[in-house]
C-alpha cells in the first residue's frame, strides 16, 4: 500500500510539472481601418531626422517605421520602403555665405571651449567632413528603389508638399524624386496605393520662424493652396484621401518647449568682479541716457552674479540702428545653436549684442504660439471633418515639459540630452522619443477606428550614446 501511494505521489508530481502559467495572447485588429499599405507623409520628424542630420539608423528608428512594423501585426503588408541614406554619419546641408556646406550628425563627445574647459557636449560625428563625399551621399538618386512608403522630407512646410519641382530646392526630396524638376512630393503617396496614411505637417511652418530667431516668416493662415496654411492643408488631405480612405493626422507641439529653446539660459553672464560691473555700467551709461531722452523704458544695467544678455532687437524700432539693443527678459528664449564660445570669449551678450537670429523675443514667441494655436485648431477640425484619427502632440508635449512622463521606467522631459526625448539637435526625437510618439499614434488610431494595434516597448529602443 505504501508503494502505491508513493507511486500516486510520483504521478501527481509528473502531471503538475507540465503546468506553466499562461497569459492570454494579444489579439491585433485593424478595426475599421485598412492598414494594408501605409504611407507616411510629413517633414523631418516623419523622415526620421535626428541629431541634426538624416542618417540610416535614425531613419529606421523613426516613428513611421515603428508604426509600419506594428501595423504588420494588424493587416499591414509589412512593406515599408524608406529612401535610405547610404551613411550612418548622416548629411545635413547648410546655406552659408560661401555656398552649401555639409555637416554630419552630432554625437556626444568631449568638447574643449575657448577657455580650455573640457565638457560633454554634442560634437560633429566627423569634424571637417569630406564635402564631395557628403554631397554625393545626399544627392545620389535612390528613386529607382521606390516607390517609397516614407515620404517624409526634412524641412518641408505644408505648401511645399504641393509644389512641383521641390526636388530641385530640397535635396532630401530630390534624391528620391523620379523627376525632381517637375514632381510634387504629395504625388509620391499614390504610388504605393496607400490604404492608410499618417500626416504630421505644419511644424516647419512655425519652426522655420522660431529656429531662425524670427527672421523667416510664419506661413500665413489664409491664402490659396501652396501659400496659405489652411488651403494647403486641405489640398494635401484631399490628395491623400483620393487613394487612402483612413489615416491619422497630428497637430503641432508647442515648439518653444523643446530643448532647442529651453536649454541656454537668458542670464549666463556671471560677473564676480565689481570693477568689471562698474566698467560695463559706465560703458552703457550713454545708451541709458539716450533711452531716457527717447522716453523709452529700456535700460542696460549690470550687477554681481548672473546678468541677462544684451541682444539685438530690430522690433524696438529706434531710428539709430545701433541702439536697437536691450537686455533679454527672463521669458525670452536663446536658441541652442548660439555659439557658446562667443559668449565666453568674444564678449557676446556684454560688449556685443547677441544677433537676432539666436533669440526668440517675447513678441516672436507670441507669434509662434498664436500661429501654432490657429494651425492646430484647423488640424483638429480637419480630423473630425474627414473622420481621421487625431494625435494631439501639443498636449503630449505640454505634459512632457511640465510634469514629464514615464514609460517602461524611463523618464521623459524636455531637458536637453538628460530628458531622453530630444536628440542632440534639441528638437528632433531620440529612438526612445520616436517609440513614445509611435505609441501615441497607435493610441489615437486604436480609439478612432476600434483597432487593436500592439504598442512597442519603449525600453527596447536605445538611449543617447555617451562616450
Amino acid at each position, binding site marked *: *500500500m*505504501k508503494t502505491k*501511494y*508513493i507511486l500516486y*505521489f510520483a504521478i*501527481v*508530481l509528473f502531471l*503538475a*510539472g507540465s*503546468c*506553466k*502559467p*499562461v*497569459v*492570454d*495572447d*494579444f489579439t*491585433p485588429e485593424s478595426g475599421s481601418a485598412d492598414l494594408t499599405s501605409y504611407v507616411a507623409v510629413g517633414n523631418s520628424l516623419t523622415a526620421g531626422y535626428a541629431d541634426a542630420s538624416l542618417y540610416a539608423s535614425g531613419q529606421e528608428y523613426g516613428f513611421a517605421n515603428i508604426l509600419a512594423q506594428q501595423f504588420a*501585426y494588424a493587416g499591414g503588408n509589412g512593406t515599408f520602403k524608406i529612401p535610405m541614406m547610404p551613411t550612418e554619419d548622416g548629411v545635413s546641408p547648410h546655406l552659408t555665405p560661401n555656398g552649401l556646406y555639409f555637416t554630419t550628425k552630432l554625437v*556626444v563627445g*568631449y568638447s574643449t571651449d575657448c577657455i580650455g574647459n573640457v565638457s*560633454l557636449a554634442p560634437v560633429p560625428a566627423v569634424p571637417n567632413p569630406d564635402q564631395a563625399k557628403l554631397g554625393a551621399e545626399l544627392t545620389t538618386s535612390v528613386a529607382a528603389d521606390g516607390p517609397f512608403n516614407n515620404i517624409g522630407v526634412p524641412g518641408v512646410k505644408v505648401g511645399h508638399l504641393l509644389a512641383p519641382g521641390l526636388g530641385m530646392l530640397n535635396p532630401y526630396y530630390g534624391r528620391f524624386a523620379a523627376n525632381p524638376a517637375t514632381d510634387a512630393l504629395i504625388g509620391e503617396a499614390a504610388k504605393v496605393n496607400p490604404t492608410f496614411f499618417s500626416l504630421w505637417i505644419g511644424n516647419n511652418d512655425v519652426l522655420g520662424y522660431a529656429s531662425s530667431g524670427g527672421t523667416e516668416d510664419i506661413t500665413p493662415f489664409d491664402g490659396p493652396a501652396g501659400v496659405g496654411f489652411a488651403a494647403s492643408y486641405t489640398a494635401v488631405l484631399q490628395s491623400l484621401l483620393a487613394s487612402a480612405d483612413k489615416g491619422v493626422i497630428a497637430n503641432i507641439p508647442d515648439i518653444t518647449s523643446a530643448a532647442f529653446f529651453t536649454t541656454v539660459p537668458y542670464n549666463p553672464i556671471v560677473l564676480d568682479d565689481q570693477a568689471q560691473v562698474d566698467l560695463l555700467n559706465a560703458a552703457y551709461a550713454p545708451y541709458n541716457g539716450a533711452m531716457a531722452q527717447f522716453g523709452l523704458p529700456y535700460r542696460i544695467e549690470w550687477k554681481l552674479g548672473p546678468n541677462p544678455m544684451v541682444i539685438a532687437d530690430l522690433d524696438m524700432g529706434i531710428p539709430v540702428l545701433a541702439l536697437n539693443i536691450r537686455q533679454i527678459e527672463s521669458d525670452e528664449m536663446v536658441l541652442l545653436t548660439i555659439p557658446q564660445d562667443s559668449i565666453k570669449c568674444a564678449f557676446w551678450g556684454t560688449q556685443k549684442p547677441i544677433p537676432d537670429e539666436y533669440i526668440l523675443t517675447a513678441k516672436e514667441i507670441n507669434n509662434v504660439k498664436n500661429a501654432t494655436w490657429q494651425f492646430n485648431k484647423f488640424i483638429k477640425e480637419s480630423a473630425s471633418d474627414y473622420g481621421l484619427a487625431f494625435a494631439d502632440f501639443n498636449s503630449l508635449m505640454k505634459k512632457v515639459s511640465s510634469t514629464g*512622463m*514615464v*514609460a*517602461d*521606467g*524611463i523618464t521623459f522631459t524636455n531637458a536637453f540630452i538628460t530628458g*531622453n526625448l530630444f536628440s542632440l539637435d534639441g528638437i528632433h526625437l531620440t529612438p*526612445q522619443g520616436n517609440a513614445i510618439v509611435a*505609441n501615441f499614434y*497607435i493610441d489615437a488610431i486604436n480609439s478612432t477606428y476600434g483597432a487593436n494595434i*500592439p*504598442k*512597442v*516597448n519603449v*525600453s*527596447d529602443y*536605445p*538611449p*543617447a*550614446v*555617451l*562616450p
Partner: protein
Amino acid sequence: MRKFTFLLLSSVFLSMTVFAGGYQVRLQGNKQNGFGLVGTPLSVGSSAMFYNPGALGFMESKIDFEFGGSAILSTAAFQKAGSNYQAETDNPLGTPFYFYFAGKLGKLITLGLGVYTPYGNSAKWESDWAGKNLIQDISLTAIYVQPTIAFNFNEKFGVGLGFVYTIGGVELNKGLNYSGDAGVNLKGDATSFGYNVGIFFRPVENWSIGLNYRSEIIMSVEGGDATFTVPSSLQGVIPTNNKFNAELPLPANLDLGVAVQITEKFMLAVEFDWVFWSVYDTLSFTFEEAGDLLDSKNPRKYSNTFIPRLGMEYAFSEKFQIRGGAYYDTSPANDRYFTPETVTLNTFAYTLGLSWYPNEHFGLDLSFLQTFGLKSDKTYQPDNFGGTYQTSAIIPGLGLSFKF
C-alpha cells in the same frame, strides 16, 4: 465527511477577498507542508518551533530532530498592457530548508533550536526584457535561528517562546537607461532580531487550538555594495563602486488554528493567518556617494493579508499517514504599485503529503504543493509599467525526522 469538507472549502474560497503572499515562504516542515501549511494547532514534533512554540512541549518523544527542505519550481508570465509583448521568468530553484532539534527537560520544560527560512524571493527575468529598468533579477534570503523554550503547565495547556536571530541577504540587478547595457548591482547583508510566541491548548479530548505570533523583523542593509555600470563619461557623477543602505521588512504574523480528531484515523484542521504586510510601504535606497542623484524612495504600499487554510490527515496506521490541504493566499501588493521584482498574485494552492515511519525512531515525510496565481492586471505606476501577470509553482519537499 467529504461533503462537509467540500462545503467548508467552497465557503472559504468564496468569502475571502484579502490575503498574503509577498515574499513569505511558509514551507517550514514537511508534515505541515502537506497539511495545507496548517501548523498552529498541531503538535507533530520539533517543527512546532516555527509554527507554534507553544505546541513544542507536546511532542511525544524526549528528543526530536527534524530536517528537510523543499524545491520551489516557480514561473511568472507577463503580457504587457496594450502590446503583444510577453515575457516569462527563468527563476532559479528556490530551496527553503529547516532544521529543528528539541529535547524535554522534565515534564514542564522543553528546549529547542530551530533554523528555518520563512522569507525569500528569487525572480529572474531576461536581462534585456521590457521591464529591465525596474528589475532584471533579485534574490532575497533570510535564515532564522531560533532558540526556544516551551512550558507545559498541564496536559491541556502550553506556551512557548522563541528568540529569533535573522541573517539575511539580498542581491538584485536592474538596468539604467544609459548606453552600453548600463545597470546597477546591489548586494547587501543584514542581521536582526525578533521573537516567536505561541499558545497551545487542548480544551477537550480530540480538539486542539493554537495561537501564534511571530514578530516583525526589519532587515537593515548598511553599507551594502552598489556596483554601477555606466558609460565612462558618467563615472565622475555616478561612481562605479558605491555603498548603499536599505531596509526590508519581514512582516509579523498572527496565526490561529483549530484541529479536530474526527475519527481515530481522520483529522481535520483549519487555520487563519493574518500577515501584517502594511509595514512594507516604501523601499528606500540611500547611497554613500552621489546620493542627490541616486537616492530613491520606491512606493510598495502593501496591505495586510489574511489566509484561510484547511488541512486533513488520514492515518492508515501509526506508521503511515497521508495528508491533503488547500489554502487561498491573497496578494499584499497594491494593484498600482505592483513591481515585477515580487510577482505576488492572489493564489490558490493544494497540498499533498505522506509520512512513513519504518520504525519508532525514524520518519520520512514527503510533501507536494501546487500553486496557481490568479491572472491579474497590475501596474507599477511610478514607472508606467504594467500588464497581465500569472504565476504558478510546484513545490516537492522531503523531510526526515528522528525521535528518541
